[in-house]
Protein backbone atom coordinates (compact mmCIF):
# COMPACT_ATOMS: atom_id res chain seq x y z
CA UNK A 1 0.00 0.00 0.00
CA UNK A 2 2.79 2.39 0.95
CA UNK A 3 4.65 1.40 -2.22
CA UNK A 4 1.61 2.37 -4.26
CA UNK A 5 1.44 5.72 -2.46
CA UNK A 6 5.04 6.50 -3.40
CA UNK A 7 4.36 5.57 -7.04
CA UNK A 8 1.33 7.86 -7.01
CA UNK A 9 3.35 10.71 -5.50
CA UNK A 10 6.13 10.47 -8.10
CA UNK A 11 3.52 10.16 -10.83
CA UNK A 12 1.61 13.25 -9.71
CA UNK A 13 4.77 15.38 -9.55
CA UNK A 14 5.80 14.18 -13.02
CA UNK A 15 2.30 14.95 -14.33
CA UNK A 16 2.48 18.49 -12.96
CA UNK A 17 5.97 19.09 -14.38
CA UNK A 18 5.05 17.76 -17.83
CA UNK A 19 1.80 19.75 -17.86
CA UNK A 20 3.76 22.91 -17.06
CA UNK A 21 6.30 22.09 -19.79
CA UNK A 22 3.49 21.48 -22.31
CA UNK A 23 1.99 24.89 -21.57
CA UNK A 24 5.22 26.88 -21.44
CA UNK A 25 7.00 25.28 -24.41
CA UNK A 26 7.55 27.74 -27.29
CA UNK A 27 7.76 25.23 -30.12
CA UNK A 28 4.29 23.90 -30.96
CA UNK A 29 5.39 20.44 -32.02
CA UNK A 30 7.31 19.90 -28.78
CA UNK A 31 4.24 21.07 -26.87
CA UNK A 32 2.13 18.44 -28.62
CA UNK A 33 4.65 15.73 -27.75
CA UNK A 34 4.59 16.83 -24.11
CA UNK A 35 0.79 16.59 -24.22
CA UNK A 36 1.10 13.04 -25.51
CA UNK A 37 3.53 12.19 -22.70
CA UNK A 38 1.06 13.69 -20.22
CA UNK A 39 -1.69 11.42 -21.57
CA UNK A 40 0.60 8.39 -21.34
CA UNK A 41 1.45 9.12 -17.70
CA UNK A 42 -2.18 9.77 -16.82
CA UNK A 43 -2.98 6.31 -18.21
CA UNK A 44 -0.68 4.87 -15.51
CA UNK A 45 -2.34 7.12 -12.94
CA UNK A 46 -5.81 5.91 -13.97
CA UNK A 47 -4.72 2.28 -13.71
CA UNK A 48 -3.30 2.90 -10.22
CA UNK A 49 -6.60 4.58 -9.28
CA UNK A 50 -8.43 1.42 -10.51
CA UNK A 51 -10.22 3.02 -13.45
CA UNK A 52 -9.28 0.70 -16.34
CA UNK A 53 -12.13 1.94 -18.54
CA UNK A 54 -10.90 5.51 -18.46
CA UNK A 55 -7.30 4.33 -18.88
CA UNK A 56 -8.17 2.39 -22.03
CA UNK A 57 -9.96 5.34 -23.58
CA UNK A 58 -7.20 7.77 -22.62
CA UNK A 59 -4.52 5.47 -24.06
CA UNK A 60 -6.23 5.24 -27.44
CA UNK A 61 -7.62 8.75 -27.81
CA UNK A 62 -5.40 10.96 -25.66
CA UNK A 63 -2.00 9.67 -26.61
CA UNK A 64 -2.76 8.18 -30.02
CA UNK A 65 -5.39 9.87 -32.12
CA UNK A 66 -5.27 13.40 -30.69
CA UNK A 67 -1.49 13.58 -31.01
CA UNK A 68 -1.65 12.37 -34.60
CA UNK A 69 -4.36 14.89 -35.51
CA UNK A 70 -2.38 17.73 -33.89
CA UNK A 71 0.76 16.75 -35.80
CA UNK A 72 -1.11 16.62 -39.10
CA UNK A 73 -2.66 20.01 -38.44
CA UNK A 74 0.79 21.48 -37.75
CA UNK A 75 2.12 19.83 -40.93
CA UNK A 76 -0.60 21.31 -43.11
CA UNK A 77 -0.18 24.74 -41.49
CA UNK A 78 3.54 24.62 -42.28
CA UNK A 79 2.72 23.72 -45.89
CA UNK A 80 0.36 26.67 -46.21
CA UNK A 81 3.00 29.01 -44.83
CA UNK A 82 5.75 27.82 -47.17
CA UNK A 83 3.56 28.34 -50.24
Amino acid at each position, binding site marked *: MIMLDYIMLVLSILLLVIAFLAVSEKSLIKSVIFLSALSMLSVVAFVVMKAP*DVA*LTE*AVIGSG*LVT*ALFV*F*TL*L*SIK*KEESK
Partner: protein
Amino acid sequence: MKKLLAFVLTIGLGLLIIFALDANTTFDDFGFANLAERVSTRYITKGSNVDIIFGQTLEPESGPANIVTSIVVDYRSFDTLGEVTVLFISALGVALLLGSAGAQKRMELNFKPNFMLRVGSRALFGIIIMTGVYVTLHGHLTPGGGFPGGAMIASAMLLLYLADDEFRARIKGFKILESIAGSLYVIIGLLGLVVATYFLQNFLPNGTVGDLLSSGIVPIIYILIGLKVGSEISGMIDNFLTEEEAQ
Protein backbone atom coordinates in the same frame (compact mmCIF):
# COMPACT_ATOMS: atom_id res chain seq x y z
CA MET B 1 7.57 37.63 -15.40
CA LYS B 2 4.61 36.26 -17.30
CA LYS B 3 5.52 32.72 -16.28
CA LEU B 4 5.75 33.74 -12.63
CA LEU B 5 2.34 35.40 -12.84
CA ALA B 6 0.84 32.26 -14.38
CA PHE B 7 2.45 30.11 -11.69
CA VAL B 8 1.15 32.29 -8.86
CA LEU B 9 -2.31 32.36 -10.45
CA THR B 10 -2.36 28.55 -10.76
CA ILE B 11 -1.28 28.07 -7.14
CA GLY B 12 -3.89 30.62 -6.03
CA LEU B 13 -6.67 28.88 -7.93
CA GLY B 14 -5.62 25.51 -6.57
CA LEU B 15 -5.64 26.83 -2.99
CA LEU B 16 -9.05 28.41 -3.62
CA ILE B 17 -10.48 25.07 -4.75
CA ILE B 18 -8.94 23.24 -1.77
CA PHE B 19 -10.29 25.80 0.74
CA ALA B 20 -13.68 25.93 -0.93
CA LEU B 21 -14.07 22.15 -0.75
CA ASP B 22 -12.73 21.97 2.79
CA ALA B 23 -15.55 21.91 5.37
CA ASN B 24 -18.15 22.20 2.63
CA THR B 25 -21.40 20.59 3.78
CA THR B 26 -22.35 19.45 0.26
CA PHE B 27 -19.25 17.28 0.02
CA ASP B 28 -18.93 14.94 2.97
CA ASP B 29 -15.56 13.83 4.25
CA PHE B 30 -14.23 10.49 3.11
CA GLY B 31 -16.21 7.69 4.77
CA PHE B 32 -18.89 9.97 6.23
CA ALA B 33 -21.25 10.13 3.29
CA ASN B 34 -24.57 8.37 3.73
CA LEU B 35 -24.44 5.93 0.86
CA ALA B 36 -28.08 4.96 1.22
CA GLU B 37 -29.02 8.41 -0.11
CA ARG B 38 -26.81 8.06 -3.17
CA VAL B 39 -28.00 6.63 -6.45
CA SER B 40 -24.57 5.06 -7.06
CA THR B 41 -25.19 2.33 -4.46
CA ARG B 42 -28.22 1.20 -6.36
CA TYR B 43 -26.20 1.05 -9.58
CA ILE B 44 -23.44 -1.01 -7.95
CA THR B 45 -25.72 -3.49 -6.21
CA LYS B 46 -28.04 -3.52 -9.24
CA GLY B 47 -31.00 -2.98 -6.92
CA SER B 48 -30.81 -6.39 -5.25
CA ASN B 49 -30.05 -7.28 -1.63
CA VAL B 50 -28.01 -10.40 -2.43
CA ASP B 51 -24.51 -10.27 -3.91
CA ILE B 52 -24.15 -10.45 -7.69
CA ILE B 53 -21.87 -13.41 -8.47
CA PHE B 54 -19.99 -13.52 -11.79
CA GLY B 55 -21.18 -16.44 -13.89
CA GLN B 56 -23.98 -17.47 -11.51
CA THR B 57 -26.55 -14.73 -10.93
CA LEU B 58 -29.54 -15.10 -13.22
CA GLU B 59 -31.59 -12.16 -14.55
CA PRO B 60 -30.27 -9.23 -12.49
CA GLU B 61 -31.84 -5.80 -12.88
CA SER B 62 -29.04 -4.76 -15.23
CA GLY B 63 -27.07 -7.38 -17.14
CA PRO B 64 -23.47 -6.21 -17.71
CA ALA B 65 -20.77 -7.61 -15.41
CA ASN B 66 -18.78 -4.38 -15.90
CA ILE B 67 -20.34 -1.75 -13.64
CA VAL B 68 -19.23 1.13 -15.87
CA THR B 69 -21.01 -0.41 -18.84
CA SER B 70 -24.13 -1.12 -16.82
CA ILE B 71 -24.27 2.59 -15.95
CA VAL B 72 -23.21 4.00 -19.32
CA VAL B 73 -25.29 1.81 -21.63
CA ASP B 74 -28.08 0.56 -19.39
CA TYR B 75 -29.05 3.01 -16.63
CA ARG B 76 -27.80 6.10 -18.47
CA SER B 77 -28.19 5.04 -22.08
CA PHE B 78 -29.89 8.28 -23.06
CA ASP B 79 -26.76 10.25 -22.07
CA THR B 80 -24.69 7.96 -24.30
CA LEU B 81 -26.99 8.75 -27.20
CA GLY B 82 -26.25 12.43 -26.59
CA GLU B 83 -22.52 11.71 -26.40
CA VAL B 84 -22.60 9.90 -29.74
CA THR B 85 -24.49 12.87 -31.19
CA VAL B 86 -21.78 15.26 -29.95
CA LEU B 87 -19.12 13.15 -31.68
CA PHE B 88 -21.24 13.11 -34.83
CA ILE B 89 -21.55 16.90 -34.82
CA SER B 90 -17.80 17.37 -34.35
CA ALA B 91 -17.11 14.95 -37.23
CA LEU B 92 -19.58 16.93 -39.31
CA GLY B 93 -17.76 20.14 -38.45
CA VAL B 94 -14.42 18.68 -39.51
CA ALA B 95 -15.95 17.48 -42.77
CA LEU B 96 -17.44 20.93 -43.42
CA LEU B 97 -14.13 22.67 -42.76
CA LEU B 98 -11.70 20.31 -44.44
CA GLY B 99 -13.71 18.31 -46.96
CA SER B 100 -14.69 19.58 -50.37
CA ALA B 101 -16.88 18.48 -53.22
CA GLY B 102 -14.09 18.55 -55.79
CA ALA B 103 -11.35 16.02 -56.45
CA GLN B 104 -9.10 15.29 -53.49
CA LYS B 105 -5.65 13.82 -53.19
CA ARG B 106 -3.50 12.56 -50.37
CA MET B 107 -1.50 15.10 -48.41
CA GLU B 108 2.16 14.61 -49.31
CA LEU B 109 4.30 13.61 -46.37
CA ASN B 110 7.99 14.37 -46.24
CA PHE B 111 9.12 10.77 -46.01
CA LYS B 112 8.69 7.91 -48.44
CA PRO B 113 7.61 4.67 -46.71
CA ASN B 114 9.71 1.69 -47.77
CA PHE B 115 8.62 -1.86 -48.50
CA MET B 116 9.29 -3.25 -45.01
CA LEU B 117 7.23 -0.54 -43.32
CA ARG B 118 4.34 -1.14 -45.66
CA VAL B 119 4.29 -4.92 -45.10
CA GLY B 120 4.84 -4.63 -41.34
CA SER B 121 2.03 -2.14 -40.94
CA ARG B 122 -0.31 -4.44 -42.89
CA ALA B 123 0.51 -7.22 -40.43
CA LEU B 124 -0.03 -4.94 -37.42
CA PHE B 125 -3.27 -3.63 -38.90
CA GLY B 126 -5.02 -6.98 -38.42
CA ILE B 127 -3.88 -7.31 -34.82
CA ILE B 128 -5.05 -3.80 -33.90
CA ILE B 129 -8.41 -4.36 -35.62
CA MET B 130 -8.80 -7.65 -33.74
CA THR B 131 -8.09 -5.92 -30.42
CA GLY B 132 -10.63 -3.22 -31.24
CA VAL B 133 -13.29 -5.76 -32.17
CA TYR B 134 -12.55 -7.78 -29.01
CA VAL B 135 -12.79 -4.71 -26.77
CA THR B 136 -16.07 -3.73 -28.44
CA LEU B 137 -17.62 -7.21 -28.25
CA HIS B 138 -16.63 -7.73 -24.61
CA GLY B 139 -17.69 -4.24 -23.56
CA HIS B 140 -20.26 -5.61 -21.11
CA LEU B 141 -17.80 -8.03 -19.47
CA THR B 142 -14.37 -6.34 -19.36
CA PRO B 143 -13.15 -2.72 -19.27
CA GLY B 144 -13.58 -0.92 -22.55
CA GLY B 145 -16.51 -0.93 -24.89
CA GLY B 146 -17.76 0.81 -27.97
CA PHE B 147 -15.87 4.09 -27.60
CA PRO B 148 -12.31 2.76 -27.02
CA GLY B 149 -12.95 -0.15 -29.39
CA GLY B 150 -14.08 2.16 -32.18
CA ALA B 151 -11.14 4.47 -31.55
CA MET B 152 -8.79 1.46 -31.78
CA ILE B 153 -10.27 0.51 -35.16
CA ALA B 154 -9.78 4.11 -36.29
CA SER B 155 -6.18 4.11 -35.08
CA ALA B 156 -5.56 1.00 -37.22
CA MET B 157 -6.79 3.07 -40.18
CA LEU B 158 -4.43 5.84 -39.11
CA LEU B 159 -1.54 3.36 -39.17
CA LEU B 160 -2.36 2.41 -42.77
CA TYR B 161 -2.61 6.08 -43.74
CA LEU B 162 0.80 6.76 -42.20
CA ALA B 163 2.63 3.74 -43.53
CA ASP B 164 1.37 3.85 -47.10
CA ASP B 165 1.47 7.17 -48.91
CA GLU B 166 -1.00 6.04 -51.57
CA PHE B 167 -3.59 4.48 -49.29
CA ARG B 168 -7.07 5.96 -49.20
CA ALA B 169 -10.08 4.40 -47.52
CA ARG B 170 -13.43 4.32 -49.26
CA ILE B 171 -15.00 7.08 -47.19
CA LYS B 172 -18.44 6.81 -48.82
CA GLY B 173 -18.93 3.36 -47.27
CA PHE B 174 -17.90 4.71 -43.87
CA LYS B 175 -20.45 7.51 -44.08
CA ILE B 176 -23.22 5.01 -44.88
CA LEU B 177 -22.11 2.66 -42.07
CA GLU B 178 -22.04 5.55 -39.62
CA SER B 179 -25.55 6.74 -40.42
CA ILE B 180 -26.95 3.20 -40.34
CA ALA B 181 -25.37 2.52 -36.92
CA GLY B 182 -26.62 5.83 -35.52
CA SER B 183 -30.15 5.28 -36.80
CA LEU B 184 -30.23 1.72 -35.47
CA TYR B 185 -29.34 3.00 -32.00
CA VAL B 186 -32.36 5.31 -32.04
CA ILE B 187 -34.56 2.59 -33.57
CA ILE B 188 -33.59 0.15 -30.78
CA GLY B 189 -34.49 2.88 -28.30
CA LEU B 190 -37.86 3.39 -29.95
CA LEU B 191 -38.41 -0.40 -29.96
CA GLY B 192 -38.04 -0.25 -26.19
CA LEU B 193 -40.78 2.38 -26.17
CA VAL B 194 -43.06 0.20 -28.31
CA VAL B 195 -42.36 -3.27 -26.87
CA ALA B 196 -41.91 -2.22 -23.25
CA THR B 197 -42.54 1.03 -21.38
CA TYR B 198 -39.77 3.60 -21.88
CA PHE B 199 -37.15 4.81 -24.39
CA LEU B 200 -34.04 2.60 -24.63
CA GLN B 201 -35.44 0.04 -22.21
CA ASN B 202 -33.63 -3.30 -22.11
CA PHE B 203 -36.45 -5.46 -23.44
CA LEU B 204 -34.39 -8.62 -24.13
CA PRO B 205 -33.69 -11.18 -21.35
CA ASN B 206 -30.58 -10.43 -19.30
CA GLY B 207 -29.33 -14.00 -18.93
CA THR B 208 -26.44 -15.00 -16.66
CA VAL B 209 -24.01 -12.30 -15.52
CA GLY B 210 -20.67 -12.86 -17.24
CA ASP B 211 -21.84 -14.73 -20.35
CA LEU B 212 -20.87 -13.32 -23.72
CA LEU B 213 -24.48 -13.55 -24.87
CA SER B 214 -26.10 -11.79 -21.94
CA SER B 215 -27.51 -8.47 -20.77
CA GLY B 216 -30.03 -8.03 -23.59
CA ILE B 217 -29.55 -5.04 -25.86
CA VAL B 218 -26.32 -3.76 -24.23
CA PRO B 219 -23.86 -5.69 -26.46
CA ILE B 220 -25.89 -4.80 -29.55
CA ILE B 221 -25.80 -1.11 -28.68
CA TYR B 222 -22.08 -1.26 -27.90
CA ILE B 223 -21.35 -2.90 -31.27
CA LEU B 224 -23.36 -0.15 -32.98
CA ILE B 225 -21.45 2.52 -31.02
CA GLY B 226 -18.15 0.85 -31.92
CA LEU B 227 -19.02 0.85 -35.63
CA LYS B 228 -20.21 4.45 -35.46
CA VAL B 229 -17.20 5.79 -33.55
CA GLY B 230 -14.75 3.81 -35.69
CA SER B 231 -16.18 5.02 -38.99
CA GLU B 232 -16.56 8.59 -37.73
CA ILE B 233 -12.95 8.92 -36.53
CA SER B 234 -11.67 7.17 -39.66
CA GLY B 235 -13.55 9.75 -41.71
CA MET B 236 -11.99 12.51 -39.62
CA ILE B 237 -8.50 11.09 -40.20
CA ASP B 238 -9.19 10.95 -43.92
CA ASN B 239 -10.34 14.57 -43.86
CA PHE B 240 -7.16 15.59 -42.09
CA LEU B 241 -4.90 13.68 -44.47
CA THR B 242 -6.39 14.77 -47.78
CA GLU B 243 -6.34 18.10 -49.48
CA GLU B 244 -7.91 19.65 -52.50
CA GLU B 245 -6.39 18.91 -55.85
CA ALA B 246 -4.44 21.94 -57.02
CA GLN B 247 -5.73 23.40 -60.22
